[in-house]
């Protein structure tokens, strides 16, 4: 997978996924990136600062040690001066004792002075504090400190650490000898002597060993030539167990250096100690601050995981609040699309709710409009059908008028009067003052009048019966529904009957919860195909008899019934060839007056 397509794939997944996953992904990614970035930058800054602080602190500590040491040295120098000028110089050793006065000064400085001893130029002990005896055979003239003091009489000389073995003391002690030349007065003569002050090595080692540099850092002390005066591992350096770069440090001037030793970087802080040419050297291993611990790592992991879990939960909560309502909205819309049923989900955030309400309104409007359209369509149909039905059949009129004229010409005035009356009633009910719904009584009257007229025309071709239950007479029916059926029955069946066997029976009754008006004849009957065709209204099935029939047909009746009353009502035909036909009109039982006209 190339880089390009990876990005494309990511992009796709990102933008095409559900709101929920997109939100989750972007939220998480951005938060994680933020955490990592913040964490990394903070850590980097923090550790850099810590490193800087630690380094500064270390330098301060080394400076402090340096200061303390300088103070010691200054004190001792002051002691030496005090002794030289105040005690020794003007004291005639012949007559006075130096010991007491030296002892006073010694007591003050006994914390870091081991011995004070005064020698004359021949190397014999003049005075000492605290009380001590020279060891037998000890010749101080061979000692470094003596020689140096005598060579450079104006200076105070600091020697390196030595084991003091001058005095008949039981223990060997490490000291740092300080020596200087002094002026001794014996009687009237003055001469040179050497004042020796043994600094307690322990004072220096206590000072240096108490310093805590960061980590395993330590401070050591070297003289001008780089020889170790104090080092926490001095004994081990002497035997070679441990190595130190003190000679390098001796060459360096004050400052901070980095060196590489034993596979580690170290910071070396060099500070010169005044007067003596010594150097205090602090050694710290770098880096000062790190997360090396497994505990630290575990802790970071814990924090990170806690944060991440919190993130996920927050995300879940948020998406629930925001994306679920959108999803429900979407689902309800989808449901609606399919079935036009149901309502739109309204809920969630303001926007979602507004959206839901708007969609709901649209849907309501849409439903209303649809209903309107349907209703209009129905209206139109009704009007058409009614109009169709209301057409007056001219053939029937011509023929009936002809028959009436014949009757009049043949002096059958009563029959003529009866025919005219029937015709008048027939047309009156046909109109029914423009109403489309009439009582069953009227519809039966209508068909009775029709049959009356047709009976006169088709003399003795058929008989007819009209039966009705009293209960149905006041029910509502559409006008002009029975007559077309009867018309069909006459023209298609009765016309072919011989000898007056034809019977048309019209029955109006309540059955199966409906108003059923049936027209039964014992005529030719029809094949099932013809029956189907009749109801379907195909022209092939209904051979148009020219000059006969109203031309409206069963279909119209069925359509009208269904339009007014619903699809569950209509016309049923029961017929077999040569067995007669039963046409039943099914309509609801609606008492007249309760039905709306339209």
């Amino acid at each position, binding site marked *: 997978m190339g880089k390009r397509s990876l990005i494309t794939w990511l992009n796709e997944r990102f933008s095409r996924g559900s709101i929920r996953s997109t939100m989750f992904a972007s939220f998480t990614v951005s938060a994680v990136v933020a955490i990592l970035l913040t964490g990394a930058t903070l850590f980097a800054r923090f550790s850099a600062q810590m490193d800087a602080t630690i380094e500064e602190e270390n330098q301060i500590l080394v400076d402090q040690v340096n200061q303390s040491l300088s103070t010691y040295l200054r004190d001792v120098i002051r002691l030496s001066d005090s002794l030289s000028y105040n005690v020794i110089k003007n004291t005639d050793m012949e007559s006075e004792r130096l010991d007491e006065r030296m002892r006073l000064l010694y007591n003050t400085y006994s914390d870091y002075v081991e011995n004070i001893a005064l020698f004359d130029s021949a190397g014999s002990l003049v005075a000492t504090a605290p009380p001590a005896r020279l060891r037998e055979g000890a010749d101080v003239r061979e000692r470094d400190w003596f020689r140096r003091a005598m060579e450079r009489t104006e200076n105070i000389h600091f020697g390196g650490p030595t084991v003091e073995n001058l005095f008949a003391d039981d223990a060997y002690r490490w000291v740092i000898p300080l020596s200087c030349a002094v002026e001794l007065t014996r009687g009237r003569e003055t001469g040179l002597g050497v004042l020796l002050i043994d600094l307690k090595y322990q004072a220096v080692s206590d000072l240096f060993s108490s310093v805590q540099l960061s980590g395993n850092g330590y401070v050591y002390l070297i003289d001008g030539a780089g020889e170790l005066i104090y080092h926490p591992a001095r004994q081990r350096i002497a035997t070679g167990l441990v190595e130190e770069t003190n000679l390098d440090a001796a060459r360096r001037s004050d400052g901070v250096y980095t060196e590489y030793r034993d596979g580690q970087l170290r910071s070396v802080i060099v500070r010169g100690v005044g007067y003596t040419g010594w150097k205090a050297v602090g050694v710290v291993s770098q880096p000062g601050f790190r997360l090396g611990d497994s505990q630290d790592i*575990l802790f970071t992991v814990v924090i990170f995981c806690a944060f991440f879990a919190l993130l996920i939960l927050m995300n879940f909560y948020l998406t629930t609040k925001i994306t679920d309502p959108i999803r429900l909205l979407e689902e309800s819309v989808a449901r609606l699309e399919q079935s036009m049923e149901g309502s739109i989900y309204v809920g969630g955030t303001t926007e979602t709710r507004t959206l839901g309400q708007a969609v709901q309104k649209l849907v309501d409007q849409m439903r209303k409009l649809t209903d309107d359209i349907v209703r209009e369509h129905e209206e139109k149909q009704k009007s058409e059908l009614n109009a169709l039905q209301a057409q007056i059949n001219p053939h029937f009129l011509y023929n009936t008028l002809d028959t009436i004229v014949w009757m009049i010409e043949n002096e059958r005035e009563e029959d003529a009067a009866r025919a005219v009356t029937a015709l008048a009633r027939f047309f009156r009910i046909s109109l029914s003052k423009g109403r489309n719904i009439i009582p069953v009584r009227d519809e039966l009257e209508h068909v009775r009048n029709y049959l009356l007229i047709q009976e006169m025309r088709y003399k003795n071709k058929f008989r007819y019966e009209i039966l009705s239950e009293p209960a149905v007479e006041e029910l509502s029916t559409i006008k002009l529904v029975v007559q077309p059926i009867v018309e069909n029955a006459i023209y298609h069946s009765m016309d072919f009957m011989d000898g007056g066997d034809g019977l048309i029976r019209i029955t109006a009754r309540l059955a199966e919860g409906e108003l059923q008006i049936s027209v039964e004849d014992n005529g030719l009957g029809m094949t099932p195909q013809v029956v189907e065709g009749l109801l379907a209204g195909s022209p092939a099935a209904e051979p148009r008899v020219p000059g006969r029939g109203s031309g409206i047909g069963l279909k119209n009746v069925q359509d009208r019934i269904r339009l007014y009353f619903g699809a569950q009502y209509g016309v049923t035909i029961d017929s077999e060839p040569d067995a007669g036909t039963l046409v039943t009109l099914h309509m609801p039982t609606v008492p007249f007056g309760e039905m709306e006209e339209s």
Partner: protein
Amino acid sequence: MRRGEKCLLLAVLATLMAALILLLIQSAGGGGAAEVYHVSVLLDAAESDRWKNLRAGMNQAALERNVDLRFIPRYDEGAAQSEILRQEWEGGADGVVVLPTEDLTPVLKEAPDRLAVGILGPRTARGVGDCCIAPDYAGMGRSLAEAAAELGSCTLYVEEGAGQTALELAQAVEAGLAGLGVPCERRTADPADLPPLPEHGALAAVEPELLEAICAVRGTRGRAFGVGTSDTLLRALEEGRVAAMVVQSDYDMGYLAVSQVTEQLTRGKTGDVTLETYTATGENMFRRPMADILFANY
């Protein structure tokens, strides 16, 4: 919550729990670094100033490694070192450092595995003791032989019932002298009751008490040679009564002993260490680095 999210959440929570538990275990378990080991040190006469440097080295190592060091100061008359050793490990010591004054092999075989044993002396048998810190005895003997050879002949004194170390040293000295073509005679002596000493030739002793006794006798000035130091011997060396001494750095010995024992306790394995030896004379004893070695305790 979708399945994917649920899985992710569970995974993250699981990691969290695991890390937390690990963290708690670590901190509750003493954090590793805060572990204190108890090490007992059995010397032959711990109060004696002979072992000042050794103790200094041991204390330094103990300080660095957070070890609680306990010096068994004295033994009851008759209580064997083995008995004391046993008492120590039964008393809950994690490790012991022993300067053997008797054969400790049987008691060390009984010692529990968890006990770290450091021996200040030669390795006597395999598996006895986890680490042995000792100087190169053969080398010591040779150096002593070289120093003593100047006097032309040598009488070597060994105590009655001398320990393993002393015998090994004695043999090394004899071998060295023989190698240099110097005649050497071995004699036993009791420091409390010395026999008369020969007038000429080197007087060598591989045990400090014996050497102290020898150099206290008149007429032995500049002829005494020995191994190991004590304050008295240092005094004698300074005054010239002892001509030369072959020493190891007791400080290093102590330091390494405690270090190795701690290493055994923390890491489960360690090894023997051989120390360097040096010849100290009146001239070089106050000069560094010899002064640092001889006077390691300050």
